[in-house]
């Protein structure tokens, strides 16, 4: 648990608890005013609830008490807003950090991609808000002062009391026993009775080993019945364990030393405590009203107005003792109560108990789990109370005005990229066929919207999506369609039909259909048709001639892709795109030890519309891997909203061993079988294969380009044992030109074992005619 966490969590708790306490004290004060003729025990119980409330969680209501009952969060800013400006911008610019992409074996029918990684911000980028630190320091200082004062006062009192004469027999001790019998205290033998020669009030002191201190002047000047009343009063304090409550008051008073209402409630609790004891003494007829009232007044005069009389008369020392009268008590009101006591009134019966329990049950839990405290180690970035459904950013509604068929369409309004599940279909009968998900889609978006289909097959989950088959920006109704290919024997347990929305705006979906269609002899998701054609052994992608693509490309980077002698003093990573980009959005992705340390004193920023820099601190002889966009984070996008290609910038700093340098190597294709551009491939060829020059990670992205795809119906690609050659079963026909792509702009699972993707390579060949 870090200091910043403690500071933030403590201040938040204090703020919420202070609000709640203020409200609760107000409620108790109202209840006490209404119950002024009730038993003092009931009023005391209500005030005691204040101090119990102070130490209870602020979210006692659990899940039952969310808005509008949840109170106490007012004026407490979300933690994210307490971050320093630099860190806040870091969060606000949505710079995601994704786990390193480890190649995952893909099902043969889809390009494999990694699941979205959680958004993460390095906690080190946050620091303690100076105002928060000052506030916390003030509070902690106050707590220390109050608790220190209590401790010093208490220890001084302990020393003083130990010096006093203990009375174990004789008339005063017998009076104590007599008082104990009268008020029903059965364990009076535990009580140490001590006499002081100094002017003092009579008081009870201690929790485990109680001591009653009685001034000698009281013994000399009070009548036996008066002494009996005074001692009975202290014995009732002992029976009620009021000294324990005194410590509770001290602890809560220390924690909320700044809260005047808590001090006020503490004084009211002390008053009611005395009235409870008066009530018990008179109810047991230990003394008559006049004698007892006189005993209180004479105790005050004997103590010369000081409740304690020993050590320094500091109120902080009063934590562990209770006396016949308390400092600041309204004596006149108390004497009026004594004089007007009627044993038949103000009983603490079941009605009083029920009132107390009911009050506690209703008002103690003021808030629910929506204000839940953070678990140790968690760092809260943003709080969404979700009091308003609009906060959740996505609304799904029926639109009866905009439709292509039937009575209405489904309208989805979102504030950010999202995927919405529209339907699930159990066990569709598609064995050995093509399943086609088609829907009419209309959009009013900054980005695009496309379809996505998930299939649960044989315990695995696979998906099909095609970002190029989409509606873009403001678009009228358009029928979109994506296929999924099932081999013979493959029967999906369930198919999920989604719509992917790339950014804020509105999408209408109507007329969804799920079709069964014969297999065409190809499979996989489509890739842009204008991917770069490459030879068998092509140059590294970033060195290749730039071809105009529908999506932004990186045309230059510092350091270069795959560089192995990067100067460790390089303090920024820079990428240059081929077109104007949408600023300030960016998605530097990656994570783990291969992701460079971010220089927190500077910010990632756009230098101009095409160049973006990431401030870093590099180490010597180390391999680094920085992603530009990813499947889940695509904030590098063109000014017209098209996400940039997913690239991984791998490099090693100077001085690295060869084994480290090899990690930065960009995999190259060593061999294609059949060769790229081969014009007389035997139509009986059953497999095609690609061999890389390095061991690969095991994932693969065979991507459709729009031409004939050569994959066999029941083919599942596999890797050779050395991890370099990937083979795909095919079913070829004579006289056909086939085309496919190894990796694509957004599918890059042909990666080295160190997570460096192979450049996108379009592969084409033609079979012999019959």
């Amino acid at each position, binding site marked *: 648990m870090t200091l910043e966490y403690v500071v933030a969590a403590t201040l938040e708790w204090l703020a919420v608890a202070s609000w709640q306490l203020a409200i609760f004290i107000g409620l108790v004060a109202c209840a006490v005013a209404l119950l002024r003729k009730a038993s003092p025990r009931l009023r005391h119980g209500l005030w005691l609830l204040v101090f119990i409330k102070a130490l209870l969680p602020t979210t006692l209501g659990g899940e039952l008490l969310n808005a509008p009952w949840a109170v106490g969060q007012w004026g407490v800013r979300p933690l994210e807003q307490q971050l320093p400006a630099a860190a806040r911008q870091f969060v606000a610019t949505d710079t995601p950090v994704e786990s390193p992409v480890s190649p995952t074996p893909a099902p043969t029918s889809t390009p494999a991609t990694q699941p979205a990684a959680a958004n993460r911000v390095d906690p080190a980028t946050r620091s303690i808000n100076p105002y928060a630190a000052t506030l916390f320091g003030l509070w902690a200082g106050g707590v220390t002062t109050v608790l220190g004062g209590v401790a010093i006062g208490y220890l001084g009192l302990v020393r003083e009391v130990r010096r006093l004469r203990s009375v174990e027999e*004789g008339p005063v001790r017998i009076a104590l026993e007599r008082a104990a019998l009268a008020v029903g205290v059965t364990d009076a*033998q535990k009580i140490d009775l001590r006499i002081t020669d100094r002017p003092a009030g009579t008081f009870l002191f201690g929790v485990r080993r109680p001591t009653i201190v009685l001034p000698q002047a009281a013994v000399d000047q009070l009548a036996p019945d008066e002494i009996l009343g005074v001692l009975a009063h202290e014995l009732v304090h002992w029976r009620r364990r009021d000294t324990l409550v005194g410590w509770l008051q001290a602890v809560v008073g220390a924690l909320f030393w700044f809260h005047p209402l808590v001090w006020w409630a503490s004084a009211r609790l002390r008053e009611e405590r005395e009235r409870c004891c008066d009530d018990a003494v008179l109810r047991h007829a230990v003394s008559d009203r006049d004698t007892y009232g006189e005993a209180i007044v004479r105790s005050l005069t004997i103590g010369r107005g000081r409740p304690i009389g020993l050590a320094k008369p500091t109120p902080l020392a009063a934590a562990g003792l209770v006396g016949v009268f308390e400092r600041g008590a309204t004596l006149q009101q108390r004497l009026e109560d004594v004089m007007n006591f009627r044993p038949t009134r103000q009983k603490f019966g079941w009605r009083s108990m029920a009132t107390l329990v009911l009050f506690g049950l209703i008002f103690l839990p003021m808030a629910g789990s929506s204000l839940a405290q953070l678990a140790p180690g968690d760092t809260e970035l943003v709080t969404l109370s979700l009091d308003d459904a609009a906060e959740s950013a996505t609304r799904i509604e029926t639109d009866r005005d905009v439709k292509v068929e039937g009575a209405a369409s489904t309208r989805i309004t979102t504030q950010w990229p999202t995927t919405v599940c529209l339907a699930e279909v159990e066990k569709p009968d598609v064995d050995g066929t093509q399943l086609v998900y088609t829907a009419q889609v209309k959009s009013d978006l900054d980005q695009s919207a496309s379809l996505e289909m998930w299939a649960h097959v044989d315990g695995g989950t696979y998906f099909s999506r095609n970002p190029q088959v989409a509606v873009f920006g403001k678009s009228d109704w358009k029928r979109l369609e994506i296929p999924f290919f099932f081999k013979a024997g493959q029967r999906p347990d369930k198919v999920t039909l989604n719509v992917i929305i790339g950014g804020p705006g509105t999408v209408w979906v109507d007329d969804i259909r799920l079709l069964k269609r014969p297999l065409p002899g190809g499979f996989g998701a489509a890739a842009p048709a204008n991917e770069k054609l490459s030879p068998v052994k092509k140059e590294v992608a970033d060195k290749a001639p730039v071809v105009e693509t529908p999506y932004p490309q990186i045309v230059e980077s510092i350091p270069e892709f795959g560089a192995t002698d990067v100067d460790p003093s390089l303090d920024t990573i820079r990428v240059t795109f081929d077109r104007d980009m949408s600023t300030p959005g960016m998605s530097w992705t990656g994570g783990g030890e291969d992701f460079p340390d971010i220089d927190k004193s500077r910010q990632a920023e756009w230098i101009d519309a095409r160049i973006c820099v990431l401030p870093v601190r590099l180490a010597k002889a180390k391999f680094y891997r920085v992603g530009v966009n990813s499947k889940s984070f695509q904030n590098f996008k063109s000014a017209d909203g098209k996400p940039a290609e997913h690239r991984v910038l791998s490099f090693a700093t100077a001085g690295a061993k060869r084994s480290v340098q090899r990690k930065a190597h960009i995999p190259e294709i060593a061999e294609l079988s059949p060769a790229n551009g081969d014009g007389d491939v035997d139509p009986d060829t059953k497999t095609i294969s690609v061999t890389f020059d390095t061991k690969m990670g095991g994932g693969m992205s065979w991507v459709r380009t729009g031409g004939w795809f050569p994959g066999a119906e029941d083919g599942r690609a596999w890797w050779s044992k050395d991890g370099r050659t990937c083979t795909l079963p095919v079913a070829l026909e004579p006289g056909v030109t086939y085309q496919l792509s190894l990796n694509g702009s957004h599918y890059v699972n042909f990666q080295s074992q160190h997570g460096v993707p192979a450049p996108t390579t379009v592969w084409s060949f033609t079979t012999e005619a019959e």
Partner: protein
Amino acid sequence: MAAEKHEPPALSPTEWEVMKVLWERGPLAARDVFAGLPRDARGKPVHDWAYRTVKTLLSRLVAKGALDYEQVGNSYLYRAAVAQEAMARQEVGGLLDRLTSHTGAAGRKVVSTVLAQFLGDAELSDDEVRQLQAALERNRRAAPGKPPRRGGRSK
């Protein structure tokens, strides 16, 4: 300060132990009561009581009216304020009351059985046997045809 003399108070077993010392040995200071508490064959106190506990018990017994005390110099001399016989009668009476209350004839039968058992086990002198016979005779004459009274408390 003398306690008012009312009906003998109910005593706890620990208070009985203290009272027995005072009944046996007459007026004593707290220290002597502490020394007079029963000991086992090896001379060790049967009860693990502190001296302070004994003084507290004495104060409580005074408060209950079972003891009187007087100050002699700096110490206090305690003496029993109720006779042992009266206290015993009170205790037995209370016991019989508890056994027979609200149980009618069945309860009375239990009492007579217990009494017969008790008399059978007790080692009584001739004089004590004669006193018992005289008491039974008085009881029969006082209420002819009625069952004996439930408790053994004397008025």
